[in-house]
């Protein structure tokens, strides 16, 4: 019985198999035809850009995607770049040091008590759908943020102490403040069109994408308009706004292509598929510098890396100590002494592959106006002897085993140095630091954690030191605020708290006299330098490369030495132009000049490409045909 059943099913199975086989014939045929069609038609399709050469397209490779085109929601730097193209701002940034320059506002003035700011708005500006732009749009944008809700998350801090924004007429915006706010007039908030956004309720805004639909570009007043692209998508296409008040861009289109890793992006630059790559490694910069037709730089970026200490974590609700931080690090003298045990130049060479600058204070040199320079007698240098003397003086004597003890004579617990596992630089920095600490008799060990895990550890106060970094905005206020007592448990990661520093923070935030404010900001940096919750190790650079045989006139920001794209503002998208039209770049001496092309390899080979492609297609067809013929013959033979 069972045998019969098995036999039945075996037959059934065989039947199915042969049915499957006869179906596979057409499948192969379909695949072959598809292959042929793809090969023959796909190639001309890829030649398309060359055919439509009249349109000038500047193609930029990004290594991260824009997270949202909605200016109230996006967070990634790439999104900021997209808004800078689509929208405009009341205030622009200078190329030299990112200080405020006229944007949509041509001028502004402050009342003597600093509580009323009046901005005078440019006339003749139009939205990309033709509707006139007025001061009411600015008031609308700011009021949406002041109303709270999702809009407040990104932008509320720029409108601190602003209570009311009005537009008394089409050319005037008035900000009323509770108390003076020194961060003004820097307002990096993209201005959105009221006539479009009034249809987006506060409930809808948290998932409103602000993306274009076919034939309906995003409405903005910036130098470009977004015609194609979705958040998290792989390409974003922008069309030039020929009516832009600052003059029409010199390119017709800017296209962003998202590469998920930077090796292929560099390959695409070499091949000529893209004109610009950003965020590449120092080694890639070095390799590209040798490539004809390409200019590659490590541009100064306004950010720093630091070794941060647990200066005494506390539960912010109860005020009781939190975590298990090493008691030695609660002593500012101990932390300051360690500042002499870091060879910053060596770190730059080894951990940063030569890309970066030795760091001093939390305000990077890009903001030269605010940066404090430590005098020679205070400034850190690599001097292990001096570090040892300072530790001796502070009571951390060396024991008989060569290791330092606590001032009360008890042994010192080894410092736990936490690196971020995703960053080789982070691990290398702390490995070096550990060696230097060993040289001065301070025991230490390095452990690497994933960034999110490390954040949890920092918030629990269960650490001694870690390596991380910050990106610093043109106004120092927010960076300075991260070191105040009030930020403990929020953004403060060193648990630093110094009432004298906090008093200065409040003073500078309300100080309307720029010279006095700068003085306060510098004194705050001095306090931090000596208290050493952070030992700033390096100022960052960002690797960028451009096809300078095709495009020219990118101006660095900060100028000189800075980066070309992902700057503050859309300046270079307006300035970039084909190499043949470079001239003297409107007289900007520091702008990138065109270089002579390679042997033309970038554009050559299209004809041969077609031929080789055709050859490949032919082989595919022959192979598929042969396969089919063989199959048919075999079947026939078996049947016979």
């Amino acid at each position, binding site marked *: 019985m069972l045998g019969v059943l098995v036999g039945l099913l075996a037959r059934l199975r065989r039947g199915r198999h042969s049915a499957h086989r006869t179906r596979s014939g057409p499948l*192969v045929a379909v695949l072959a035809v598809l292959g042929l069609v793809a090969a023959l038609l796909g190639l001309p399709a890829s030649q398309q850009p060359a055919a439509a050469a009249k349109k000038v397209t500047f193609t930029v490779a990004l290594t991260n995607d824009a997270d949202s085109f909605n200016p109230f929601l996006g967070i990634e730097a790439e999104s900021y770049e997209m808004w800078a193209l689509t929208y405009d701002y009341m205030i622009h940034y200078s190329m030299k040091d990112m200080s405020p320059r006229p944007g949509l506002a041509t001028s502004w003035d402050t009342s003597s008590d600093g509580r009323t700011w009046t901005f005078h708005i440019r006339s003749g500006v139009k939205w990309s759908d033709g509707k006139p732009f007025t001061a009411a749009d600015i008031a609308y944008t700011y009021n949406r943020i002041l109303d709270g809700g999702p809009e407040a998350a*990104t932008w509320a801090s720029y409108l601190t102490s602003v209570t009311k924004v009005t537009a008394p007429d089409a050319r005037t915006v008035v900000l009323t403040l509770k108390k003076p706010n020194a961060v003004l007039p820097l307002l990096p908030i993209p201005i959105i069109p009221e006539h479009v956004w009034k249809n987006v309720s506060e409930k809808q805004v948290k998932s409103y994408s602000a993306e274009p639909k076919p034939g309906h570009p995003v409405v903005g007043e910036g130098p470009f308009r977004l015609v194609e692209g979705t958040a*998290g998508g792989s390409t974003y296409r922008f069309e030039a706004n020929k009516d832009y008040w600052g003059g029409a861009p010199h390119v017709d289109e800017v296209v962003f292509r998202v590469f998920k890793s930077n090796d292929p992006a560099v390959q695409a630059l070499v091949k000529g598929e893209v004109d610009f790559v950003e965020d590449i490694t120092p080694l890639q910069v070095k390799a590209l510098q040798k490539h004809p037709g390409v200019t590659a730089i490590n541009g100064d970026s306004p950010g720093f890396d630091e070794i941060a200490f647990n200066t005494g974590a506390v539960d912010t609700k109860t005020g009781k100590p939190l975590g298990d931080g090493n008691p030695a690090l609660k002593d500012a003298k101990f932390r300051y002494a360690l500042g002499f045990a870091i060879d910053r130049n060596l770190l730059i060479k080894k951990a940063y592959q030569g890309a970066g600058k030795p760091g001093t204070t939390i305000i990077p040199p890009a903001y030269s106006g605010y940066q404090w320079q430590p005098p020679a007698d205070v400034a850190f240098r690599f001097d292990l002897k001096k570090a040892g003397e300072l530790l001796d003086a502070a009571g951390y004597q060396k024991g008989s085993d060569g290791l330092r003890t606590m001032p009360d004579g008890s042994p010192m617990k080894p410092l736990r140095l936490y690196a971020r596992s995703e960053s080789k630089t982070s691990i290398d920095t702390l490995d070096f630091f550990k060696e230097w600490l060993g040289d001065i008799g301070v025991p230490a060990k390095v452990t690497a954690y994933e960034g999110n895990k490390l954040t949890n550890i920092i918030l629990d106060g269960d650490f001694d030191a870690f390596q991380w970094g910050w990106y610093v905005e043109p106004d120092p206020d927010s960076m300075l605020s991260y070191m105040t007592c009030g930020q403990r448990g929020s*953004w403060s990661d060193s648990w630093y708290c110094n009432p004298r520093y906090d008093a200065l923070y409040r003073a500078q935030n309300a100080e309307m006299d720029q010279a006095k404010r700068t003085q306060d900001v510098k004194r705050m940096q001095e306090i931090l330098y000596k208290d050493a919750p952070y030992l700033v190790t390096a100022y960052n650079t960002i690797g960028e490369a451009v096809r300078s045989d095709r495009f020219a006139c990118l101006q660095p920001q900060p100028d000189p030495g800075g980066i070309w794209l992902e700057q503050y503002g859309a300046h270079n998208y307006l300035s970039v132009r084909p190499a043949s039209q470079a001239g003297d770049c409107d007289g900007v001496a520091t702008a990138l000049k065109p270089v002579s092309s390679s042997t033309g390899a970038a554009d050559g080979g299209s004809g041969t490409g077609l031929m080789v492609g055709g050859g490949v297609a032919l082989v595919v067809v022959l192979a598929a045909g042969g396969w089919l013929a063989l199959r048919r013959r*075999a079947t026939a033979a078996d049947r016979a």
Partner: protein
Amino acid sequence: MTTTLVTAPTTSPVGRHRSYGRYLAGKILGAVASLFFVLVVNFFLFRVLPGDPARTLGRGRFSSAAQLAEFRHTYGLDESLPRQFVTFLHNTFTGQLGISLRYRVPVGDLIWERLWPTVMLVGTSTILATLIGVYIGMLGAWNRGGPFDRVSTGVTLTLYSMPEWWLGLLLIAGLAVGIGPLPGLFPTGGLHSTDVDPSSLKGVLDTAWHLTLPVITLTLAYLADYSLVMRSSLLDELGEDYLLTARAKGLRDIAVRRHHAVRNALLPTTTITAINIGFVVSGAITIETVFSIPGLGLLSSEALSIPDYWVLQGAFLVASGAVIVANLGANLLYGLLDPRVRT
């Protein structure tokens, strides 16, 4: 149980039919149960991950605690865990998967957008690898020890043990950028050119053109999966008497191979194909990264670093759902093909 025993001998065909129905019902019930299990585990699994999305996303952007709180409130992160779980269940059964914390768009839309590149990439590669792999394995086993066997086993194993992303980078350097006299034939990455409408015929072909290199890479990497299984199962069949019988009938060698040996050797390959089809929507993270293909693998790996709970839950639901459905399909197919498994 007793009824089956009693009725089975008298009405054999009906009994068999009923037992298949029972088998089917059991498998479907099992699948639904595992899907629900996955749903629950997913929710709690991702909450155990270290990291706070508001802090990861807001570093250097939200300077005050109020801004952090606002973000958490907008996206429901400030609710209690049980409450979030109820919301999650409610959302899942009403077909909404929440709003992505990173992209601030509905997760369903995001997954739908990312699904088709992955299916095209991994699906095509799986089909190609199956067809070519089975053929290679068959030829290798038939002439076991011969030059083709040795070369093909060596080559497929080498490709199999190579990191996929490295193979991809080599192909980019060789075939996309071009080396020496060899011109760059293929695009270095992405899913389509910027100047063509992806829904037009030209756009479809353009997409196929962009997918050529990644598909080749994955196909090469997957080959050994199928060729080795096919080779060993065919080797098992080679000693069987029925092949001797077939030869004795005077059939040509190729006919013996194709219509007798291979047919029986295909069963294990069917199994891995069925299972691997379930994994198609899980994506191929490394290949999607190297070729910058916005697929599901990349989406979930990026979501993991935030962690973007709703995207992770959605992506894993889709991925595990597909595996469960594929396994169910394989089980049902097997129930038809081989009655021995129906117990």
